[in-house]
């Protein structure tokens, strides 16, 4: 059966996926809106930067993050001088790493969804007395909900399978920073195939169930609202 350590790894994995997805959605919504509508020329730079984590090997990303968030790093050092702990080998550090790692998977669908929303709908809302912020929440966001759903699913799933960034940044501390993918790797290295099987199967079943639920929801949306 599942050892307490493996259960802990699963818990850390889901907590990490959930938290980083939630924060990403909140932060990326205004950024994606801006990218979808700005005519600023420097936009290309931002777009390239956002897509960079998709191209880089996770180890490269993890390496730079380790340096940046560690005790001597720019971020970690500043935190230490302020009386906080640095972020290497901590759960907070993992959240930051996952967010950067999954950034393109949230930005892409959100930007595309906002671009596809016709300006006409927002004009209509304006003639119906909705302020710009009101228009965003009552029209732009509901019309982009499929984009939000896709972004959330991709980000969550991508973080579940994260390995390289975490092994560089997290230090594999059981119960705190050890995630399921790394626990499986450890079991295999230790020739404990039974444990590796259990953990893998749980991941497969849970991921599948999640996707089924999400696509079911997506279909329901389709029937009610936008085709």
């Amino acid at each position, binding site marked *: 059966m599942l050892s307490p350590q493996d259960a802990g790894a699963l818990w850390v994995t889901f907590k990490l996926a959930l938290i980083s997805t939630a924060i990403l959605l909140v932060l990326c919504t205004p950024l994606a809106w801006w990218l979808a509508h700005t005519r600023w020329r420097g936009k290309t730079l931002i777009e390239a930067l956002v897509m960079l984590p998709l191209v880089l090997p996770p180890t490269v990303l993890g390496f730079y993050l380790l340096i940046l968030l560690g005790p001597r790093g720019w971020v970690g050092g500043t935190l230490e001088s302020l009386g906080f702990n640095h972020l290497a080998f901590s759960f907070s550090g993992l959240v930051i790493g996952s967010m950067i790692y999954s950034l393109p998977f949230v930005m892409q669908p959100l930007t595309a969804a906002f671009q596809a929303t016709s300006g006409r709908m927002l004009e209509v809302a304006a*003639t119906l*007395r909705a302020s710009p912020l*009101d228009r965003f929440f*009552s029209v732009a966001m509901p019309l982009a909900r499929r984009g939000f759903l896709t972004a959330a699913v991709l980000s969550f799933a991508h973080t579940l399978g994260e390995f390289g960034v975490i092994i560089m940044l997290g230090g594999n501390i059981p119960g705190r920073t050890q995630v399921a993918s790394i626990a499986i790797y450890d079991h295999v290295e230790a020739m404990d195939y039974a444990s590796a099987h259990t953990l893998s199967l749980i991941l497969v079943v849970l991921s599948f169930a999640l996707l089924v639920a999400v696509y079911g929801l997506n279909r329901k949306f389709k029937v009610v609202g936008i085709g």
Partner: protein
Amino acid sequence: MQNETTQTELLTQTELQARFYVEHGDFTLDVEFSIPSYGVTALFGRSGSGKTTILRCLAGLERLDGSRLRLGDEVWQDAERFVPVHQRALGYVFQEASLFPHLSVRGNLLYGYQRVATAERSVTFDETVALLGLENLLERYPDKLSGGQRQRVSIGRALLTSPRLLLMDEPLAALDDTSKAEILPWLERLHESLSIPLVYVSHSIDEVARLADHMLLLENGRVLAQGPLQEMLTRPDLPLARSGNASTVLNATLVDQDAQHHLSVLECGGERLLVSRQNASPGQRLRVRVTARDVAIALRPPAGSSVSNCLAAQVESISDDPQPCHVLVGLAFGDQKLIARIARHAHEQLGLTPGMPVYALVNIALSCSEASWRSSGLSHTPNCQHRKLSAPDILASY
């Protein structure tokens, strides 16, 4: 008498005054106009004449520098100010209904309604739903509605914001003929019960003839002429009177029904007018459309003729028709105007000159529609009795 004072006050209170100017490539928009505080004003012109741009400027969807806009005592735009769209008390009906797909009909209708302070609401939800016949559609989603139904919902949605100005951008242009025929009576009914100015953009003279009270004629970004509908339709110097299906609109009152002959008797400019039977009650105002080529002129009332209407009129003007074999004769009787397109040789035979008394002969195959509320004065109670029109020819496209 008191009624008239109120009307004048109302006019000065809510009259709309606008001046828009922009140069955009080879297109220049340079217009200055005012719109009366009542009734339907048609912005009429070909595509590219600047109609839609003007409407978007009125709404504040487009911002042109060097423009001015005032509705009654409220300045919406001048050198210093620009009131954003959502702070203007206006309703806008777009060419495509543009309903929010994520909301039901009820949700769409309530969207603007809920964003207007309770104290500023001048219409109720139920009233508007009843006015536009939306009772059975409330729980449906926009993708389950026909084109005409969608446009009705979007009109209702705009009305529910209690606007002081209603703007419509070719609301029928995207509809097929069946949907058009379905929605026109609703627009007429709306026209009848509306107490705010409605600016209606159209390039269909048929819609304009049925709905408008005033007309702003646009050409290449400039105002060619503006005035009351009847005057604009009959002015021989304007392209309207010179077009092939030139016509005018008479304001008439139903006097009596002649059930035996399937006729309605109307009073119009002091004359009696017989038309095909209209489903209206005595005292009701009707609008009668008369095509110029259907009007003949005689010097004496013809004896033994099949023509049912013979109106004592006076020749006002004689002008050339684009067809050299025809002339256009402007006629007046009482406070009403007509135009007749007659053969040039007939004109010479009759020796028509301005001021000459003649008889205008008009057959009964006329198109009638409900007149606006304002033609019978402000005291008129909106008559919400809806009826179908027996006038298929009025829907033919221009």
